[in-house]
C-alpha cells in the first residue's frame, strides 16, 4: 500500500476528529452531553494497547487479556459507592483530578504534588506506547519503509493541537468540553466497529479456528485456565489491577468525573460500557488463534493488521489501522490533557505564584501538553522495541494503582492521616520502582543486567523474600500495593489526626475582587451572583473551589489567605468532608426526629385547644347559672313587694335588705366577670414603679370597714419593697385575697410582705377552718365557691398574678394561707396570664 495514501487517510481521519469536536461544541452539544456520549467516552479506556495488544497477549499468554476488561466492569458496578460519591464531591469542590481530592482530604502536604509528578513519570511510557502503535501500524501498512519520515511526530503535534484547542480554551478545566467528549465517543465507535468488522470478515473468510486450536498442542494451553496458585493469583491480581486503573487513571477521572454532565448518566454507563468492552473482546481470541496458525513468524501485536492484509483486502487492513489510530488518539488526547492539568495545577501554579506570573498559567498548561507529547515521543524513539516500552502498559497500571490506599482510605476511613497516606504512597512507589520499573530498564539493557539478581537472594527485584514463580507484574503489584496499604494504615493508626485547620471567613466584595483579578471579570460577575446570600465562610468555600479548579488547590488556598480571616466557628472543608458520611445519616435521623416531635406538639396543641374550648363552655354555663340564682331571688322579692303593698314595716325592711344584698352580689358577680373578660381581652399592663408596702397598707385600709363590721382583727408585717409592676392589678389581687380571708376568718387575718431574692412575697393568712382537703386542687378554678361567694375571686387573683409574672399557691398549715410572689421587675408583658 502506498505510504502517501495511508498518510493521507490518517490525516483525513485526524481532520474529521476536529470537525466532530467543532460540531460537538456547536449544534451537537446536546448529543455530546447525553448519557450515551458519556458511556462511550468512558471507552477511552480501550487504547491501542487493547486494539493491537490484546490480540498479541491472547496469542502468547492466553486468556489473561480478558481480566483487563473484567476489572472495570466490577468497579463500575460499584458506582453508587465510588463514582457517584466522587461526582458529588467534584460538584461541590470542583475537583479536576485525584490529586485535588487528596489535597482536599489531607490538606497541604507534599502528597498531592508527589502524586502529580509520579503520575506523569508513570504514564509517559504508556503514552509513548500509543505513539508507537500508530508509527508501527503505519510502517507495516506502507511496506516497512519510512519514506516520509516518522509519522508519529506530526500525529503527536496534531493531537497536542487538538487537546489545546478543545481542552484548554478556558482556564477552568472543570468546565465541560463537549467537543472533546463527542470526539472521544466518536473514536470509541470507530474502534469498536473497525475491530468487529475485521474480526467478522476474518472469521467469514477463514472460518472457526477453535477446532484446529483444540488439536494443536501449542495452542491448546492458551484456551485453558491459568495453572496453579501462581496462575490464579495472576488472574485475580489482573482483574483487581485493571479495575483500580480504571478508577485512578487520570484520563478516566477526566471523562468520568470532570466531563460528567449529569450524575444519572452513570446508570446507563454502568451496563452499556461493560457491554462495549464485551463486544470489543469477542474477536480477540479467534484473531489471535488465526494469527498463530497462519502467520507464525509475524509479530503477534500486528495480527490485527496482518490478517486482513493477507487474507481479506487492503481496504479492511486500512480500516483496522484507522481503528488502532482512533484507539491511540483518543487516549493520547485525554491523557495528555489530564496530565497537563495535573502538572499546571499541582507543580507549576505554586511556582508561578511565587514569581507573580499566575496570569500565564493557561499558556503553561498548553505548553505542558506539548511537552508531555514531546517527551512521550522521545521515550518511544529512545526505547523502540525495548522491554521498557512493550511491557509498560501494565507497569503503568501498577503505578496508577498506588493511588488506591490514600484515595480509598481517605474516602471511607476517617482515621486516615496525611502522614499515613504520604508514607504509604512513598513506600508504594519505591517498591514499584524496585520491582517493576528498574527491572524493565535492566531488561532493556539500560541498567546492568546484574540488577535483576538483587543484592541478596531475599531482595531479588522480581522475587522479594525469595518468591519464585510469580510473573513480574503480579509480584510487583501485590508487593507495592501491600506495602503501600500496610504503611498507610499502620502509620495512620500511630499518628495523630493532626489539627483540623480552622475554617475561614471573609467579605463577599473582597472575595469577588480576588476571583475577578485572577479568573477574569466574567467569572467575577458569575461568582458575585452565585455567592449572593451565602455566609462568609460559605462564600470562602465557594471561592476556594472556583480558584482551586483553575489554579490548583495549594495556590487557591495561598491566595485566599490575604482576602480572608480565621473563623474558628466556621467548619473547614476538610472537616466537612470527614463528617460528610456521618452527617448524612445524622441528618436523616434528625429530620425524622423533628417530624416526630412536630407531630407530637401538634397533637398536644390540639388537645389543649379542645380542653380550652370545653372550659369556655363550662364557664359560660357556670356564669349563666351563677347569675340566675341572685336574679331569681331579686325578681321574686320584687314581685312579693309589688303584690303585697300593705306588708308590715319590719317584713318590708327585711325584704328590701335582702333585695339590696342580692343586687350587691349580682353586681360583684358582674364586676368579677368584667374583670375576667378584661383579662381575656388582653388589656395591656401599665408598669409603674410601685411601693408595695404603701399598696398593701392601702388594701388594708380598704377592707378595714368590713373587718370591723365582722369583728376581725387585721394584723400586718410589711417590709418596704419597691417593684416595677401594674399597681391596680396588684391591688385587685390583694383585695380579692383579703376579702376571701375575711369571709373565712374567725377572729384574725394577717398580711405579710417580704422581699425574697428577685421577688416580693405576699402572704395572707386567716384563722378559719382552712380549705377542705378535697377542694384544695380546685381552689383557683372559676366558680368553685365553698362559702357562697362568686367563686371568681381566687381565680382572678391567680390570672392576675401569673399575668404579672408571679406565682400563687395555697400553703399548708392551720387555717388558710395564700401566698403569691411578684417579680421586682416584670421581664416581659404577658397580660393574658399563665394559661
Amino acid at each position, binding site marked *: 500500500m502506498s505510504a502517501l495514501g495511508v498518510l493521507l487517510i490518517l490525516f483525513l481521519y485526524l481532520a474529521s476528529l476536529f470537525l466532530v469536536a467543532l460540531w460537538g461544541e456547536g449544534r451537537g452539544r446536546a448529543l455530546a452531553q447525553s448519557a450515551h456520549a458519556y458511556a462511550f467516552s468512558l471507552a477511552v479506556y480501550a487504547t491501542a494497547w487493547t486494539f493491537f495488544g490484546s490480540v498479541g497477549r491472547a496469542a502468547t499468554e492466553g486468556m489473561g487479556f480478558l481480566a483487563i476488561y473484567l476489572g472495570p466492569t466490577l468497579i463500575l*458496578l460499584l458506582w453508587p*459507592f465510588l463514582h457517584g460519591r466522587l461526582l458529588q464531591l467534584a460538584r461541590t469542590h470542583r475537583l479536576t483530578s485525584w490529586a485535588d481530592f487528596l489535597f482536599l482530604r489531607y490538606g497541604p502536604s507534599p502528597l498531592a504534588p508527589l502524586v502529580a509528578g509520579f503520575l506523569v513519570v508513570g504514564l509517559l511510557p504508556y503514552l509513548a506506547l500509543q505513539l508507537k502503535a500508530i508509527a508501527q501500524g503505519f510502517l507495516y501498512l506502507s511496506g516497512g519503509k519510512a519514506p516520509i519520515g516518522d509519522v508519529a511526530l506530526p500525529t503527536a503535534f496534531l493531537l497536542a493541537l487538538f487537546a489545546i484547542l478543545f481542552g484548554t480554551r478556558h482556564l477552568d478545566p472543570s468546565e465541560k468540553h463537549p467537543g472533546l467528549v463527542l470526539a472521544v465517543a466518536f473514536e470509541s465507535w470507530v474502534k469498536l466497529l473497525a475491530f468487529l468488522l475485521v474480526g467478522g470478515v476474518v472469521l467469514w473468510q477463514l472460518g472457526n479456528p*477453535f477446532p484446529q486450536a483444540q488439536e494443536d498442542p501449542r495452542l491448546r494451553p492458551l*484456551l*485453558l485456565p491459568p495453572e496453579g496458585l501462581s496462575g490464579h493469583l495472576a488472574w485475580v491480581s489482573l482483574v483487581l489491577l485493571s479495575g483500580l486503573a480504571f478508577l485512578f487513571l487520570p484520563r478516566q477521572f477526566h471523562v468520568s468525573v470532570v466531563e460528567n454532565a449529569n450524575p444519572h448518566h452513570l446508570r446507563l454507563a454502568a*451496563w452499556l460500557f*461493560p*457491554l462495549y468492552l464485551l463486544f470489543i473482546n469477542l474477536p480477540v481470541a479467534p484473531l489471535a488463534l488465526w494469527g498463530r496458525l497462519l502467520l507464525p513468524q509475524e509479530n503477534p501485536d500486528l495480527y490485527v493488521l496482518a490478517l486482513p492484509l493477507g487474507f481479506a483486502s487492503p481496504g479492511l487492513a486500512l480500516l483496522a489501522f484507522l481503528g488502532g489510530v482512533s484507539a491511540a488518539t483518543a487516549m493520547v488526547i485525554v491523557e495528555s490533557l489530564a496530565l497537563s492539568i495535573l502538572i499546571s495545577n499541582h507543580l507549576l501554579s505554586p511556582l508561578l505564584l511565587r514569581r507573580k506570573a499566575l496570569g500565564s498559567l493557561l499558556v503553561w498548561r498548553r505548553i505542558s501538553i506539548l511537552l508531555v507529547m514531546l517527551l512521550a515521543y522521545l521515550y518511544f524513539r529512545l526505547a523502540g522495541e525495548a522491554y521498557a516500552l512493550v511491557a509498560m502498559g501494565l507497569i503503568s497500571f501498577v503505578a496508577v494503582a498506588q493511588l488506591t490506599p490514600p484515595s480509598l482510605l481517605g474516602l471511607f476511613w476517617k482515621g486516615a492521616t496525611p502522614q499515613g497516606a504520604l508514607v504509604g504512597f512513598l513506600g508504594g512507589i519505591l517498591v514499584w520502582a524496585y520491582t517493576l520499573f528498574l527491572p524493565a530498564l535492566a531488561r532493556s539493557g539500560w541498567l546492568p543486567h546484574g540488577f535483576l539478581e538483587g543484592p541478596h537472594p531475599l531482595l531479588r527485584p522480581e522475587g522479594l523474600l525469595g518468591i519464585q514463580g510469580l510473573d513480574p507484574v503480579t509480584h510487583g503489584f501485590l508487593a507495592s500495593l501491600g506495602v503501600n496499604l500496610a504503611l498507610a494504615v499502620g502509620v495512620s493508626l500511630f499518628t495523630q489526626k493532626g489539627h483540623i485547620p480552622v475554617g475561614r471567613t471573609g467579605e463577599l466584595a473582597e472575595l469577588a475582587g480576588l476571583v475577578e483579578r485572577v479568573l477574569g471579570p466574567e467569572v467575577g460577575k458569575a461568582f458575585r451572583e452565585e455567592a449572593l446570600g451565602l455566609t462568609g465562610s460559605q462564600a470562602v468555600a465557594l471561592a476556594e473551589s472556583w480558584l482551586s479548579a483553575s489554579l490548583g488547590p495549594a495556590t487557591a488556598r495561598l491566595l485566599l489567605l490575604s482576602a480572608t480571616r480565621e473563623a474558628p466557628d466556621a467548619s473547614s472543608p476538610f472537616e466537612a468532608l470527614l463528617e460528610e458520611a456521618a452527617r448524612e445519616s445524622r441528618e436523616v435521623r434528625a429530620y425524622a426526629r423533628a417530624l416526630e416531635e412536630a407531630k407530637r406538639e401538634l397533637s398536644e396543641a390540639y388537645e389543649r385547644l379542645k380542653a380550652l374550648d370545653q372550659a369556655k363552655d363550662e364557664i359560660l354555663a357556670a356564669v349563666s347559672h351563677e347569675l340566675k340564682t341572685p336574679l331569681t331571688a331579686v325578681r321574686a322579692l320584687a314581685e312579693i313587694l309589688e303584690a303585697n303593698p300593705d306588708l308590715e314595716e319590719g317584713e318590708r325592711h327585711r325584704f328590701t335588705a335582702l333585695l339590696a344584698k342580692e343586687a350587691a352580689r349580682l353586681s360583684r358577680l358582674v364586676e368579677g366577670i368584667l374583670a375576667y373578660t378584661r383579662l381575656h381581652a388582653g388589656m395591656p399592663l401599665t408598669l409603674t414603679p410601685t411601693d408595695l408596702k404603701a399598696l398593701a397598707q392601702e388594701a388594708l385600709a380598704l377592707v378595714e370597714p368590713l373587718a370591723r363590721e365582722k369583728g376581725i382583727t387585721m394584723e400586718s408585717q410589711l417590709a418596704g419593697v419597691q417593684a416595677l409592676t401594674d399597681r391596680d392589678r396588684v391591688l385587685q389581687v390583694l383585695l380579692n385575697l383579703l376579702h376571701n380571708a375575711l369571709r373565712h376568718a374567725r377572729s384574725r387575718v394577717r398580711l405579710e410582705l417580704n422581699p425574697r431574692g428577685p421577688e416580693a412575697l405576699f402572704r395572707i393568712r386567716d384563722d378559719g377552718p382552712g380549705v377542705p382537703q378535697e377542694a384544695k386542687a380546685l381552689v383557683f378554678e372559676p366558680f368553685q365557691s365553698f362559702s357562697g361567694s362568686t367563686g371568681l375571686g381566687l381565680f382572678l387573683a391567680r390570672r392576675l398574678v401569673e399575668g404579672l409574672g408571679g406565682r400563687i399557691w395555697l400553703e399548708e398549715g392551720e387555717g388558710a394561707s395564700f401566698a403569691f410572689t411578684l417579680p421586682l421587675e416584670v421581664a416581659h408583658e404577658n397580660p393574658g396570664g399563665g394559661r
Partner: protein
Amino acid sequence: MKERALALFLLALALFTPPLGLFPFGERWPWGLPPLYLYLFLAWGLVILLAYFLYRKP
C-alpha cells in the same frame, strides 16, 4: 439500591475470579468452542444483564 449494587458486585466478583484451574475446563468443548471462553463471556453477559435490570430506571 446500594445493597443491590453491592450484592451484584459480589456476585460478579465470585463469577469472574473463582479458582478457574480447579474446574474441568479442558474436557468437553460444546459446539467446538473452548469452555473457558464460553464461561467467561456468559458470566460477563449475565452480570451486564443484571446491571441493566438494576440500573435502567431512575
